[in-house]
């Protein structure tokens, strides 16, 4: 009983104290202005953060800037290519040396890994994006295209754009896209690697997810064009994408290494 009474008195006192404090210092307007300041600083910092983090992406850059970047990157590419040529020479030297040291083996296995990834003969996984293309139902003006279905050319543009953005491995509905892959129309369905694939098309690509996404999403880019036609485009970034290896046979009958 006593405790309860004490509590009541105590709470009443604190309440009164708070009320007195608020009245004495006229806190209310400060709180209201403070709330607005809260929103303002919140938006300012968030905006600055997003602008800072997106300057590196293609989006929002001006054309001239992009051209400058391109020239710079090309220069860098040439430098790196020279480096690469040098290292290829070194590897060549190792190869010609009959000494089977551990360095040679490790460089060979590294080369083997790199080549098997680029040729698509191993399963790979990593960061990337998943694009789902679904047939649209919209009927278009007849002078352009009769339908809003996903055509082989659409898939080709998407794949091409992904490659241009640095995709390291691409698959369409489980069919790995490799150097000799063909994507073409075959009647009502599309063939990839001579295997039939049908809508909805799931294009998986491993690479820098941010670059891939912005390459597809860029204004007036592939995604915009496809959406205009009426095709459903859904892009999701994923941390861990698994892409199956190419399961056909690689036959080179006419191409021989020219030394």
């Amino acid at each position, binding site marked *: 009983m006593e405790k309860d009474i004490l509590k009541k008195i105590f709470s009443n006192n604190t309440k009164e104290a708070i009320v007195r404090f608020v009245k004495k*210092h*006229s*806190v209310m*307007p*400060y*709180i*209201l*202005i*403070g*709330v*607005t*300041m*809260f*929103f*303002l*600083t*919140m*938006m*300012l*910092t*968030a*905006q600055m*953060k*997003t*602008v800072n983090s*997106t300057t590196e*992406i293609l*989006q*929002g850059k001006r054309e001239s800037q992009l051209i400058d970047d391109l020239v710079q990157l090309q220069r860098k590419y040439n430098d790196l290519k020279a480096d690469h040529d040098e290292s290829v020479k070194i590897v060549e030297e190792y190869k010609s040396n009959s000494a089977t040291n551990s360095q040679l083996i490790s460089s060979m296995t590294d080369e083997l890994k790199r080549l098997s990834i680029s040729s698509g003969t191993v399963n790979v996984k990593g960061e990337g994006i998943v694009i789902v293309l679904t047939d649209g139902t919209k009927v278009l003006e007849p002078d352009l295209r009769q339908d809003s279905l996903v055509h082989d050319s659409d898939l080709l543009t998407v794949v091409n754009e992904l490659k241009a953005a640095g995709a390291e491995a691409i698959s369409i509905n489980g069919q790995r896209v490799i150097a000799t892959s063909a994507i073409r129309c075959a009647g009502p369905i599309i063939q990839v690697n001579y295997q039939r694939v049908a809508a909805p098309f799931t294009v998986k690509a491993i690479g820098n997810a941010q670059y891939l996404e912005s390459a597809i999403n860029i204004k007036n880019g592939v995604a915009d064009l496809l959406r205009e036609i009426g095709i459903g485009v859904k892009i999701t970034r994923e941390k861990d994408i698994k892409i199956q290896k190419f399961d056909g046979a690689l036959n080179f009958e006419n191409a021989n290494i020219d030394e």
Partner: protein
Amino acid sequence: MVGVIILIGFVIAGFLTGLNLVIPYVYSKYIAVAILACLDSVFGAFTANIDKKFRINIFLSGFFGNALIAMFLVFIGDKLNVDIYLAAVIVFSGRLLNNFSTIRREYIQKIDNKVNREKNKNKIEKI
């Protein structure tokens, strides 16, 4: 004093929440225009305070209302493929500069008055 501490607390809280917020790049245009609108309201409040016309209701409604209308303009502009938000940007930044000049004049006037008063005092003492 208490008021200043409360204000600083709110600003710090806003800063921290802002650091942890992630705005998709698509919406950054909206936020940018909203920020301009809010800044305009704040400077407007300063000017009103100088004229002794500051009212908290007007400030609050202007602060949020302007931001919302500015965002709406951006939205409409996106839909119509016209950069209407440029109008908002121009109006808001114009008003911002006007308000700033009013504030500047007021404070420079005050300082001038002070200097003149002291000069006069010195003269009187000399005499």
